[in-house]
């Protein structure tokens, strides 16, 4: 027993006890519990077990269910059409093995089925073929609703009560069997002396496969009486069934015969009606089998009691007929039979086998045929007093005689013709027709003995059943998909049931054939038109263009910028260094002084001599060079001309140090002394708030100087208590915000004190509006503004003159570079446009 299961879907090896695949979650255990372990193929001669394959109907593939449903519908339509045609132009049909059953449904006067007539030894009447087709269809479909035939209405009601349609149809079919009558007439002359006058039998209840209660009482009684006369043990008939008197009489008159054990015909996985099994049983009766085999078969095969009884009854009848009563053959010379005899090669094997078995005892003559011509029921004719009982071989011969093979052939042909129409290839259907192995093997081996092929229980190895041709014809998979490369090795092909031939439908079973892990190939090719493919290609192209990276030229730009920067730096450093270090004075100072600068000089000139002046140093160390050069000229003029007392304050923490540097370096020539000529109030914290506070009350805002001395009592600040007490407020700043803060916050507190702004060149333009508005009286902005002041000083040496040449050269270099750079860019732009225009 395998302990693992290989998943049929993904090939994953799973433990045997798991129900679903651990990899793909496919079912490994079958859904239907009763079918577990019972799907093994049957071998020839093996007694099959009854299987309820209808449970598999819900799990069938959708295509198969639809195909089956379509087959039923089409079969019904065909039956309806044929029925209508038959009503108009009845066509004689060849006698059929199965036709007798169906014909019984249609005949009022022949209530006994063939199998029953075989028991009695009376040859059965030939039946209509068309109803048989439906029954064969039923056999093939297994409990499926057979195609509607002429007896559809009769079969519908019994179906609801649980009886098979073909069986129930016999019970309710009121029609007359024309074929039976024809046989009766044909065999009338041959059975003149022997055949007893047949009394018309009343309509009797039909045997049922499933319910003993449905079995006719007379049949049970018959079985009982015959069984009591036989030595071998037979299936005990029920004793509580009342036997009609006439039957008792008949039974009493029947001579006891030696029991012949009958080996049951092994059925294939295909569920065969019991009546067919019975027929099959009757075939090997000729062989002398051990009597002990009969009970075993009955116990294993669920055969209704009445069938068992009939079987036993048949065996009792067989021996005398075979030994004592030579039976002459009375082939029915009918055109239909001749026609079918010519096509004997097309007879199914099972029928040929049955025929061969019937031919084994050549002396067996179907007297039942002669009796059937009398019009009496077969069973009644065979039980006629003084008549020899027909043997089992006679029964089979009457059915499977070589001269009468047309019936099964026609039945099969008619049955599968309807199905073959669905596949629109009737030739293939007949050509591909295959019969269960048990029938073919029976035909090949003649009569299998019980000793050779003892009935085995279900589960033993039997030959796998093959898919019926009509199902095979409806399979779209075989037509569309290629055959699997190694189906035998993969072992997932279903060997029986309606799923026969399919691979990988049912989950694997532990110990069973290891399924294949190779999944079926499916076409993944997209069905798209040329236009759709073109649109898809266009969309893909657009998306590709959107997502395509654009090459960047950053590296070249960065390189050029770096080179340009180095070049410009070199130019400036070399040129300016040469000018500065060469002490050149090529460029004269400007002769015209800006208005704001002139206003600043006038304001300075207006300051009283020795008056307190507030100097605000609000610039950063980075602009020291410019601010010292710019402010030194004006401050030199102020200190030189007016000798003011300076109070230095700064809103920048570094302002005080820069102021000290300014006084010691830029105004070093003035030699102003701290504490006596100027005081450093130091750092004014609070930003504009501090400025506002200082404007409101300077003494309160900055009570101490930078050296933490009481500067307000010092000489430079004598008499100064308010901001307006300063003669002028000079703001040296490099920031617009700083200068504007002083302008705004001190506007109301300055009073008449003028404010002069000495600013960096970068902040000078922003102070011009304040100059124009009169908020500040003068502005000295940058080196150019200082140049005007220095020019006005009358040649007083200062920073401007030392810087002016370099400043002028630097300005010219800047102008030249800007112009040249602009032209270069203009040329490049024109070239680019020209290149675009050329393209």
């Amino acid at each position, binding site marked *: 027993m395998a302990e693992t299961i290989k998943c049929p879907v993904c090939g994953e090896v799973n433990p045997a006890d798991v129900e679903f695949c651990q990899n793909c979650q496919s079912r490994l255990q079958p859904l239907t519990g009763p079918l577990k372990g019972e799907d093994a193929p049957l071998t020839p001669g093996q007694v099959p077990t009854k299987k309820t394959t209808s449970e598999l109907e819900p799990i069938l593939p959708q295509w198969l269910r639809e195909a089956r449903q379509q087959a039923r519908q089409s079969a019904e339509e065909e039956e309806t059409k044929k029925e209508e045609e038959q009503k108009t132009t009845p066509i004689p049909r060849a006698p059929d093995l199965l036709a007798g059953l169906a014909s019984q449904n249609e005949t009022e006067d022949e209530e006994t089925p063939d199998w029953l007539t075989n028991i009695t030894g009376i040859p059965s009447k030939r039946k209509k073929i068309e109803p048989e087709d439906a029954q064969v269809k039923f056999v093939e479909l297994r409990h499926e609703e057979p195609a509607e035939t002429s007896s559809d209405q009769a079969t519908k009601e019994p179906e609801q009560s649980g009886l098979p349609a073909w069986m129930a149809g016999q019970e309710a079919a009121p029609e007359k069997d024309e074929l039976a009558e024809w046989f009766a007439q044909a065999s009338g002359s041959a059975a003149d002396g022997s055949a007893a006058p047949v009394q018309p039998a009343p309509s009797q209840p039909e045997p049922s496969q499933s319910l003993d209660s449905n079995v006719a009482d007379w049949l049970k009684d018959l079985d009982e009486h015959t069984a009591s006369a036989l030595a071998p043990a037979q299936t005990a008939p029920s004793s509580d069934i009342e036997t009609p008197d006439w039957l008792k009489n008949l039974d009493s008159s029947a001579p006891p015969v030696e029991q012949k054990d009958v080996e049951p015909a092994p059925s294939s996985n295909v569920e065969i009606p019991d009546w067919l099994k019975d027929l099959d049983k009757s075939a090997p009766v000729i062989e002398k089998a051990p009597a002990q085999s009969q009970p075993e078969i009955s116990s294993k095969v669920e055969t209704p009691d009445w069938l068992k009884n009939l079987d036993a009854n048949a065996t009792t009848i067989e021996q005398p007929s075979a030994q004592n009563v030579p039976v002459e053959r009375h082939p029915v010379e009918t055109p239909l039979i001749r026609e079918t005899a010519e096509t004997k090669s097309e007879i199914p094997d099972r029928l040929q086998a049955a025929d061969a078995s019937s031919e084994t005892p050549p002396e067996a003559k179907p007297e039942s045929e002669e009796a059937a011509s009398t019009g009496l029921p077969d069973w009644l004719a065979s039980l006629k007093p003084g008549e020899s009982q027909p043997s089992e071989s006679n029964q089979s011969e009457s059915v499977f005689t070589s001269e009468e093979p047309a019936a099964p052939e026609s039945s099969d042909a008619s049955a599968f013709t309807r199905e073959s129409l669905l596949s629109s290839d009737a030739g293939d259907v007949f050509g591909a027709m295959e019969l269960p192995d048990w029938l073919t093997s029976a035909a090949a081996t003649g009569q299998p003995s019980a000793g050779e092929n003892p009935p085995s229980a279900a589960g033993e190895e039997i030959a796998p059943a093959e898919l019926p041709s009509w199902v095979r014809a409806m399979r779209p998979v075989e037509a569309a998909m290629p055959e699997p490369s190694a189906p035998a090795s993969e072992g997932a092909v279903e060997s029986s049931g309606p799923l026969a031939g399919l691979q990988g439908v049912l989950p694997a079973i532990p110990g069973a054939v290891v399924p294949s892990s190779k999944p079926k190939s499916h076409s993944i090719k997209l069905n798209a038109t040329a236009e759709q493919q073109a649109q898809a290609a266009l969309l893909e192209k657009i998306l590709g263009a959107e997502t395509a990276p654009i090459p960047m030229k950053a590296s070249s730009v960065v390189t050029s910028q770096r080179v340009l920067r180095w070049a410009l730096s070199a130019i400036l450093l070399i040129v300016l*260094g040469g000018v500065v*270090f060469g002490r050149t004075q090529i460029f004269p100072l400007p002769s015209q002084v800006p208005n704001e600068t002139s206003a600043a000089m006038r304001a300075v000139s207006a300051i009283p001599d020795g008056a307190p002046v507030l100097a605000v140093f609000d610039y950063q160390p980075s602009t020291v060079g410019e601010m010292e050069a710019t402010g030194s000229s004006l401050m030199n003029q102020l200190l030189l001309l007016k000798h003011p007392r300076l109070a230095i304050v700064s809103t920048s923490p570094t302002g005080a140090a820069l102021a000290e540097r300014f006084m010691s370096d830029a105004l070093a020539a003035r030699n102003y002394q701290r504490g006596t000529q100027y005081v450093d109030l130091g*750092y004014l914290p609070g930003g504009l708030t501090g400025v506002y506070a200082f404007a409101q009350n300077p003494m309160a805002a900055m009570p101490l100087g930078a050296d933490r001395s009481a500067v307000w009592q010092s000489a430079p600040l004598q008499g100064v208590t308010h901001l307006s007490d300063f003669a002028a407020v000079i703001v040296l700043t490099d920031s617009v915000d700083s200068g504007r803060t002083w302008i705004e916050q001190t506007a109301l507190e300055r009073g008449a004190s003028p404010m002069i702004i000495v600013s*960096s060149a970068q*902040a000078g*333009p922003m102070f011009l509006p304040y100059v124009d508005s009169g*908020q500040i009286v003068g502005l000295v*902005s940058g080196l150019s503004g200082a140049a005007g002041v220095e020019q006005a000083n009358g040649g007083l040496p200062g920073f401007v003159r*030392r810087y002016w040449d*370099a400043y002028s050269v630097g300005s010219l270099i800047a102008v030249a570079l800007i112009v040249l750079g602009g032209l270069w860019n203009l040329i490049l732009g024109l070239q680019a446009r020209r290149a675009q225009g050329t393209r």
Partner: protein
Amino acid sequence: MISLDLISGILAFFFSLMILSYLIGDNPLFRIAVYIFVGVSAGYVAAVAFWQAIWPDLIQPLIYGTTLQRALLAIPLVLSVLLLMKISPQLTRLGTPSMAILVGIGSAVAIGGAVTGTLFPQISATINAFDLSKVASPIDAIVNGGLILVGVVTTLAYFHFSAGTTAEGSVKRFGLIEIIAFVGGIFVAITLGVLFAGVYSAALTALIERLHFFGTFFGLGN
């Protein structure tokens, strides 16, 4: 003997070179110089803030001041301590009142100073540009006043970004505003040019001053 001026000159020279090395790109010398400058400036600012603000205005009065001065200084002391809570993320909310006072007072002072020191005087100056009594020539008044007025109006219109939606769905300003704004753009461009020239002049002057320092340091300058 090495004088302090010489040491200061050597340090200034090397640090100036380190800063000027930025002309060839960012380099460690430039970064070192910057870091040192920042550190020295921070230290100097801290020392200045302590000795010129905290000590004389807070600590010294608390120690040596009168009771009234101490009582009055309690408020700024508490606010200052609360403002120090901004250092800790858990206690930062405690510094909010101090920050609120700073912002409130600073905003009020700034707005008041802007209104009284810039807006009204500038508006008045623009109006008075056409005052013929304050100018020598009416033509100058008209030209200057006209330029100032046009410059102010068009520049204000340039910063007027209100626009409507056209039929095509695009956003566009009114036609007259668009024309005025175009003229204002010219004034703005001129102003930016002036500012750029001022920045360049300031930087050029600073470079010249450093070059002059180098000349002086090596005895090349006067």
